[in-house]
């Protein structure tokens, strides 16, 4: 890649930050060149984030219909899935799955709720409301 070909798309992902990419200058020497973003990265990162947002939105409507616990919404909201949440809390996956079911989180004893809160970087109170960010 030539220095002049280094993409500068002012990506929304980077929010004004620039990343280093390695590219060749006019003398054919490799240089560290700052880039404000490039299309492929922006598209796929946005996609990955959209996927979580979409899962969170679905979980929210499921929760409002009484089909899952509020934990499911907060989990996706904070870009985790059941596996990562299980790993991050040290709680067995089958138990996490049970806690994602309707009422499964709200009824937990507070020490377990606390473990979820820590892994998700929130307080228990925040996890018990839908607008708790």
């Amino acid at each position, binding site marked *: 890649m030539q220095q002049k070909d280094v993409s500068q798309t002012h990506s929304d992902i980077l929010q004004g930050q620039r990343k280093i990419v390695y590219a060749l200058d006019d003398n054919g020497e490799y240089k560290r060149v700052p880039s404000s973003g490039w299309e492929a990265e922006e598209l796929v990162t946005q996609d990955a984030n959209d996927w979580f947002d979409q899962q969170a939105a679905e979980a929210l409507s499921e929760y409002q219909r009484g089909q899952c616990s509020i934990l499911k919404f907060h989990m996706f909201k904070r870009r985790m899935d059941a596996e990562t949440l299980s790993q991050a809390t040290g709680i067995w996956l089958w138990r996490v799955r049970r806690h994602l079911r309707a009422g499964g989180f709200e009824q937990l004893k507070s020490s377990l709720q606390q473990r979820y809160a820590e892994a998700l*970087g929130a307080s228990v109170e925040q996890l018990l409301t839908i607008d708790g960010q």
Partner: protein
Amino acid sequence: MSEATTFTHYQSAHCESGVSASMLRHHGFPVSEAMVFGLSSALSFAFLPFIKINQLPLIAYRMPPRFIVNGLRKLLQLPMKFETFGNAEAGMKRLDQLLAEGRVVGLQTSVFFLPYFPPSMRFHFNAHNLMVIGKEGDDYLISDPVFENVTRCASADLQRARFVRGVLAPKGLLYFLDGEPGKTIDREMVLKALKKTCRIMLYTPVSFIGASGVKSLAKALKKISGKKDEAYIKRYIGHVIRMQEEIGTGGAGFRFLYAAFLQEAGQQFNLPELKSFSTRLTAIGDEWREFAVKAARMSKGRLKLNTSELITFLENLSAAEDQFFRDLYAYVKAQ
């Protein structure tokens, strides 16, 4: 804290090679990120379908976390100290103590809990590397090599980022250099590192690592293209590109980073042929970049999904990397 004034921030493409190079530079050992990356034989390819990330396979374009720091420590006989902690308070106290001694401290952290990361870039990856160069009040001064400037992080946030649990949990890992390197970089070391990368890329006795790993990915794509619906395939290829462009370093970055290493090593250690190898690898990197653009557009629906085109890309890339490392291996062995 005096450290922040004497430390020179060195922005890099990749966190671990960046931290390693910055630390060495700080200790009066001028070395580039590319040299660090090449010397530690960090280039690779791995397609690991049995390790899932958000239900999709893990794909890596380099060796696993800690490979660079550990590799360099052995190669250069660095008096590098590593410490992990059973409890967070002890881990933060130790960090403060080392900073008070005027040290630059490397940390392994989660990306998700670092507030200075743009929100779109935050995800649950627990093996991000950064350096702490000082403390002001409750804020730590952070030299994160993938960012442009020295930044700040409040202690509660840093603590959370250091003590997350899960895959690659850092357990508060910190590391620092405790003296001068025992060795300097020489020609032998470079040749050995080159051979090691060639062997990783060609002769790892499992089909999912190295050039054959690229082929395995092509096969996997072939397999799902007949079976799964379009939405899944789009998500799958988007994920492949994300691993390449975002989680890896930008735009097939590791191939370019290694090409930069070949160029530098060729000039410094009288290995003139490495220049043309560097040019060849640059062309392979460009090919990866083109693959990424195509696949990303397909995944987003800006281009019509054409899985067989992507499969051909990967098969060609596998063949090109295979031939490249065969030729490089032959050249290096003859030295």
